[in-house]
């Protein structure tokens, strides 16, 4: 089976130690987590993990099954890139003098549709949200001029199909 990108979405209780439990599932199978994001979800008191792996579908299924088995996990899903809308964000910290000395920098900011978050005497910060390759392209463009600091978030994604967590929770309530 061919390897591809999968986004795993996990809805869970907000419980200390669950991150450890979930990451252990990958560790045990020697599968690398390419990116990981934990945030609140659309449901009150329910957390959402967004995990990206490069693997076969067979493994994606098995991992989702193992994740769902964890007591505090409400439901887990996996999706291919085509089945999700996904983005990442990045921050670039760059020396302020470049903004004036290198005219090309301003073009890069415009061409890549990035925002200037802040400007100080020493540095300015650019924010860019988009697909991984778009951020990579902007990184490539800026690199020759010197990037003081760079950071990128994990992928965040919503699925095109429904993830009906509210129904699952309501079912428990009505039992």
């Amino acid at each position, binding site marked *: 089976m061919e390897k591809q990108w999968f986004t795993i979405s996990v809805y869970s*209780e907000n419980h200390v130690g669950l991150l*450890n439990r979930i990451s252990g599932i990958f560790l045990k199978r020697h599968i690398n987590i390419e990116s990981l994001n934990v945030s609140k979800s659309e449901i009150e008191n329910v957390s959402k993990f967004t995990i990206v792996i490069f693997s076969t579908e067979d493994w994606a299924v098995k991992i989702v099954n*193992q994740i769902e088995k964890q007591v505090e996990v409400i439901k887990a899903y996996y999706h291919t890139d085509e089945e999700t809308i996904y983005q990442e964000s990045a921050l670039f910290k760059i020396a302020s003098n470049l903004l004036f000395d290198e005219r090309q920098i301003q073009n890069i900011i415009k061409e890549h549709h990035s925002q200037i978050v802040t400007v100080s005497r020493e540095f300015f910060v650019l924010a860019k949200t988009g697909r991984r390759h778009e951020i990579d392209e902007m990184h490539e463009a800026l690199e020759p001029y010197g990037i003081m600091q760079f950071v990128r978030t994990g992928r965040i994604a919503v699925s095109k199909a429904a993830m009906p967590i509210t129904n699952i*929770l309501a079912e428990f309530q009505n039992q």
Partner: protein
Amino acid sequence: METLKAEKKDTKKKTAIRITGAEAIIQCLLAEGVDLIYGYPGGAIMPVYDELYKFQDRLTHILTRHEQGATHAAQGYARVSGKVGVAMATSGPGATNLVTGIADAQIDSTPMVCITGQVARHLLGSDAFQETDIVGISTPVTKWNYQITRAEEIPEIMAKAFYIAKSGRPGPVLVDITKNAQFDELDFVYEKCTGVRSYKPAPKPDMSAIEKAAELINNAKKPYIVFGQGIILGEAEEQLKALVEKAGIPAAWTILGLSAMDTDHPLNVGMVGMHGNYGPNVLTNECDVLVAIGMRFDDRVTGNLATYAKQAKIIHFEIDPAEVNKNVPVDVAVLGNAKQTLELLLPLVNKKEHKEWLAEFEKKRQIEYDTVIDKDIYPTKPGLSMGEVIEQINVASGHKAVIVSDVGQHQMIACRYAKFKQTKSNITSGGLGTMGFALPAAIGAKMGAMDREVVAIIGDGGYQMTIQELGVIFQHNLPVKIVVLNNDHLGMVRQWQELFFERRYASTVMTNPDFVKIAEGYHIKARRVVERSDLKDAVQEMMASKDPYFLEVRVEKEDNVFPMVPTGASISDILLK
């Protein structure tokens, strides 16, 4: 939207009492019906032990001689009684010593609650004396774990711990309790947990899957059942028997499924797996419908997956959705508790007999009997065999004893030849293969079934891993029967060295102490057998004893266990010699 509650509780109104966290832990245990725990005290759990002292008329604490022994004893108790076993230890080394037993309980789905003391909340993360991150350490080997840092959390977490350990596919739960939470007071009310919203213990049976399963079974010419511990854990022994008899299907068991069905039942064809029976292995690759019930296609069962039951339609009755299609892709998955799903299946299954198919098992059994079994249990050459010892125990016990085996050659021999009439009678470390399991597990098994005879079968290697638990047997005069099959070797490893490493016996030869004297040092009646002529009498004397009894049998040093499926080989290529 209203705020959804994450847990469901017993809603009967109860009035709160003001007690310490330590007493609350005892009250929780009593409320869960616990009357026996195994453990070892130490600094961070002392407040709880102080309460145990006060409640000793209602809650028995057995001091094992090592915390690992506490977990195995709790496992033995749980496996034989179907109840939750409880083990307790202090922080740091006390807690880490539990880990092997916890991992064993996890892989063998044994319900167990472990309670560990922890340094006070304000010391967490300071590398305080006897501080270890036991929640972090135990995460991969527990079904659930939690660190309590406030006394008020105790009732809710303990209720959840017992509920999770016992429900669905059972497993070990660890609750770590900081010392301040044991000393502090709380308003105590106990409400049993009846549900956790994010946790689905058992999927609801799907009738369409059951109908498909019935159709496959009804149309099968060579149907074959392989059952595992799911039958025992799901208490589906009657339903299994009814299915086997109605549909006339030969049934084989995994090592943990042993004793779920009478070993003398005409349709019980034996054990599958690496050292299982010849027919049950070979015919897995000849059946047309394989009905797997409450088993998980462990690699020791399947051998090479690329050649496992490829010709068959496979039906998998399983409570844990993560086990379906994990190792073996199946045609029909019937999720749910085995008792429920089999009950729904039974009326849909046609009454049938499969005489020719069954005759093939008999043919293979005869081949195995002539080449292996006869020589194992009725040997004529000099030197005692492990098999003949098990056979003598069968004769003396009338197939009624609980057999607790350790790990290695003796375990395979015990599981191959021990006879059982009653369920929950074969206690062994299956998935983890934990040497040292049997002696403490036999303590738990005996205390979980005081009216039954409990015989521990142990090799000389594993025996010395937890030999100190003889102290418990002596102190409480527990009439456990201990049989050490001594071949002065780590026999199974030696067998592999002989077969696959050109007889390079690296670190498998042991110079052993006088085991009889050691037992006698614990004031346990002991006897050694070196001659075949003494065996029957010694076993009978042991079984008749009302007190603990130790029997060392000096067996042939370089016997091998056959049949054998070499690692990575197809089960069709099982070796008879």
